[in-house]
C-alpha cells in the first residue's frame, strides 16, 4: 500500500504541472564570457539564455551598453536512468564559456550527469539562387534546368542559432557540481561529489579520471568534493574544495591520478563556535581563483575567505557575510537553508569580492579599504538608473529606520549566483527567477 503512494509521488514529480513550470524558471547559474560581451544564464528547466551587450552608440553616450536577449535554447532535458530508476534533473548546474577563437561562441553547460558543448553562431545571410532547388527548397527536375547561375548570399534577419557540438556523457556516477575550462583551451574538467574527470574537447567517449576520493567502503565516506577549478594560467594546476572546509591544490604533472595533493589549505576550527552544525557550515560551496592566479577565494555558509596560494595554514582574509545567522542555524537546518550553496566572485582587478545572501541581499567586500556593503536586488529598488541604497541588517537591540531585523529576512529569497564583468564594474545577480544587471554609475 505504501508502495503505491510512493509511486504516485514519483510520477507526480516527474510530470510538469503548473507549479513545477514556475520552478523551472529559477536561475541556477550565471556567467559572463571572457570579454564580457555575453552573459549566459542557466535555469532549473534546462534552458540557457544568453544576453548580449549592446554596442555603445555615439548618439547615446549616457547609456552604457545594455544587455538584451541574444539567444535562448534548451540545453538539457529531463532524463530517466532506467537502470537505476533515477530521474536526472535537467537543471543547469554550471555554464562556462570558452575563449572566442572565431566568429562563433562556445560554451559548456552541464546538468547532474552530462556536459554539453554548445556553439552559438549568427547567421545573417542566406544563399539564394540554387540550381537544383527552387525557392522553397523543393528539388527541381534536372531536365528542366536550362541555365546555370551562381548562388549569392543575401542578407536576412539576424538569426542566432545554438547547436550542440559535443555531448560528454556517462562519465559521472555522482552529481556534477563543477566544470572548469583549462587555460590550454583544449581540455576541461568536470567534478562530481567524489571524482574529477579531465576531458579533451574533441573526444567525447573518453575522459581521464584525475581525482578519486571514493573510499573502498562507502561507509567510510567523510567528505565529498564540492567545487573545482583550474588555475587561470597554469594548465597543470587545479584546486578542489571539500565538504570539510578544506581545499586541495593539485599538480597534474606529479602523477596521473592526483589523489595526493600538492597543497592542502585548511583553517583550524574555532572550538568556541562548535555546534551541531559546525560541519555543515564549514562545507565550502564555491572556490574561485583570482584573475591573477595568486589567490583563491572560498565560500562557506557564513563567510568568504581569501587564501594565498603560498600559505596553507589559514586564509589571509576572512569576511563575515551574515554572521547574524549563526544563532539561527537550527532553524536554517530545519528549512534546509543551511544547505544553500552560495557562490562568490572576484571583480576584474581582484580588489573586490562579491557574494550573495538572503532577502535578495548581496554583499561586496573591498579588499583594500576593508569596507563592505550590502545591497538588495529587488524590483522596488531597481528602477532603471536608480542608485542602489546600501542595506543593513539589525542584529539586535534597537532597530534603526531602514534597517531590517534578522527575523524579518525572507529566506526564500536567496542570491546564490552572481557574476562580475571581467573588466568593467557590471554585475549580474540572479534572484530566484529574475536576473538583475547593475552597472557603475555614469556621471
Amino acid at each position: 500500500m505504501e508502495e503505491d503512494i510512493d509511486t504516485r509521488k514519483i510520477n507526480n514529480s516527474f510530470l510538469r504541472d503548473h507549479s513545477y513550470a514556475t520552478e523551472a524558471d529559477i536561475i541556477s547559474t550565471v556567467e559572463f564570457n571572457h570579454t564580457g560581451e555575453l552573459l549566459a544564464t542557466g535555469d532549473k528547466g534546462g534552458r540557457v539564455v544568453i544576453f548580449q551587450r549592446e554596442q555603445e552608440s555615439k548618439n547615446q553616450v549616457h547609456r552604457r551598453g545594455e544587455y538584451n536577449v541574444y539567444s535562448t535554447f534548451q540545453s538539457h532535458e529531463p532524463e530517466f536512468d532506467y537502470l537505476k530508476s533515477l530521474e536526472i534533473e535537467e537543471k543547469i548546474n554550471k555554464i562556462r564559456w570558452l575563449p572566442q577563437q572565431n566568429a562563433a561562441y562556445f560554451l559548456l553547460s552541464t546538468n547532474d550527469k552530462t556536459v554539453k558543448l554548445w556553439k552559438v553562431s549568427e547567421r545573417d545571410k542566406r544563399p539564394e539562387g540554387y540550381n537544383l532547388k527552387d525557392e522553397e527548397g523543393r528539388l527541381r527536375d534536372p531536365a528542366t534546368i536550362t541555365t546555370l547561375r551562381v548562388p549569392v548570399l543575401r542578407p536576412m534577419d539576424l538569426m542566432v542559432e545554438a547547436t550542440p557540438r559535443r555531448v560528454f556523457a556517462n562519465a559521472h556516477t555522482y552529481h556534477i557540481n563543477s566544470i572548469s575550462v583549462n587555460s590550454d583551451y583544449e581540455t576541461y574538467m568536470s567534478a562530481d561529489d567524489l571524482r574529477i574527470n579531465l576531458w579533451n574537447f574533441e573526444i567525447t567517449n573518453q575522459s581521464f579520471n584525475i581525482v578519486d576520493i571514493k573510499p573502498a567502503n562507502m561507509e567510510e565516506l567523510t567528505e565529498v568534493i564540492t567545487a573545482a577549478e583550474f588555475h587561470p594560467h597554469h594548465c597543470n594546476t587545479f584546486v578542489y574544495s571539500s565538504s570539510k572546509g578544506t581545499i586541495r591544490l593539485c599538480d597534474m604533472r606529479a602523477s596521473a591520478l592526483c589523489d595526493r595533493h600538492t597543497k592542502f589549505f585548511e583553517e583550524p576550527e574555532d572550538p568556541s563556535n562548535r555546534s551541531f552544525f559546525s560541519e555543515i557550515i564549514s562545507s565550502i560551496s564555491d572556490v574561485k581563483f583570482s584573475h591573477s592566479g595568486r589567490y583563491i577565494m572560498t565560500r562557506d555558509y557564513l563567510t568568504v575567505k581569501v587564501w594565498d596560494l603560498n600559505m596553507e595554514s589559514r586564509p589571509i582574509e576572512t569576511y563575515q557575510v551574515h554572521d547574524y545567522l549563526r544563532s539561527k542555524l537550527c532553524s536554517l537546518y530545519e528549512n534546509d537553508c543551511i544547505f544553500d550553496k552560495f557562490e562568490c566572485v572576484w571583480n576584474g582587478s581582484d580588489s573586490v569580492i562579491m557574494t550573495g545572501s538572503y532577502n535578495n541581499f548581496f554583499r561586496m567586500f573591498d579588499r583594500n579599504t576593508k569596507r563592505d556593503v550590502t545591497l538588495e536586488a529587488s524590483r522596488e529598488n531597481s528602477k532603471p538608473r536608480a542608485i542602489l541604497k546600501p542595506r543593513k541588517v539589525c542584529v539586535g537591540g534597537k532597530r534603526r529606520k531602514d534597517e531590517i531585523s534578522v527575523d524579518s529576512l525572507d529566506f526564500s529569497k536567496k542570491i546564490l549566483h552572481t557574476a562580475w564583468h571581467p573588466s568593467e564594474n557590471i554585475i549580474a545577480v540572479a534572484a530566484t527567477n529574475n536576473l538583475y544587471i547593475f552597472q557603475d554609475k555614469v556621471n
Partner: protein
Amino acid sequence: MEFKLEAHRIVSISLGKIYNSRVQRGGIKLHKNLLVSLVLRSARQVYLSDPCPGLYLAGPPGTPPQLPGELVAGPPAGWGEPPPPPAPAAWPESEPEQEHRAVLDTPRAGDLEPEATLTGARNTLQSTEAAAEEAGDSAGDSAGGLDIFPEGPRAARHYCGCLPGGGEKQGVLGAPLHGDGRCAEDKPPAPPPVCPRKRSAAGMGGCGPAGCPGSTPLKKPRWDLEEQPGRMEEEEEEMETGNVANLISIFGSSFSGLLRKSPGGGPEEAEGEGSNPEASEPGQICCDKPVLRDMNPWSTAIVAF
C-alpha cells in the same frame, strides 16, 4: 535536559530529511545526506551522552540510570567475543568495567525475550543496535556500519579493536578508518545466534547498496554475516547510498514510537505505525515489543522506495 530534547528534535528532523531525500527529483544527493548524517551523529551522541535520569523508564535492578554507554552496549551476542573496548571519549564517566559488564550481558540480549524484560531506553537502544547490526552487516565488514552509534556499542561488537580517539578518524557513515594499524585483531564476526527478531527485521531497511537510490524494487538483503565483507565491493559502481537507507530503517524502528507520541510528530513516522508503544508521555523513550513490531511496517514504508 534541553540539550537532550534539542538533540532529539534534531535527530527527528534529520531522519525526515533523509527520508524525503529519497523521493526528490534527481536522486539522493550524496553531499546533503552526508551532512545530514553528520548532524545526526552529533545529535545522537549528545542525546545519548546527556545524562537525564528521568528519561529512562525503570530498568532492571542494578542498572544505573545514567550510563548510556552501558545501555547501548548491549548488542546481541554472537558478534564475536570482542575485546573489552577502551572507553571512548564521548562517554562521560563510562568506565570500561561497566562496559565489560554490558558486554558480558550481551548473550542474554540475543533474542526477544530478554529484550522484553528490559524497559525504557535500554530496549529501544538495543533494538536499534540490533537493527544497526543487520543493516550494518549488509554494508560490509566494517564495524557496525553506522557511526551514528556511540563508540561504546560499536566497540562491544567490534570486529576490530580500532576505536576512535587517538586521532583516528571516523567515517561518518561507518567504520573507523583503519588508518594506523591499531586494528590488529580483525576478527570476523561469529554467526549470530538464532534470533527471531533478526529474522523479522530482515525485511526491513537497507535496500542494500544497489537498490537504494530512487525507487528500485527492494533487493532483500541477505543477512548472512559471513558474506558481508565482500558485499559492498561486489556491487557494481553506482551511487552507493544504501547506508542512508539503513539509517532510516534503524532510526525508523527506534523512533517511530517516540515521534508519534511527541507533539506534532512528523507524518512520515505515523505512516509506519503498528500497535501503540507503551510510552506514556511525549518525549519519553518508549520501547518494548510494540516498537519491535512497529519496525516492519515502518521499514516497509521506507523500503518501498
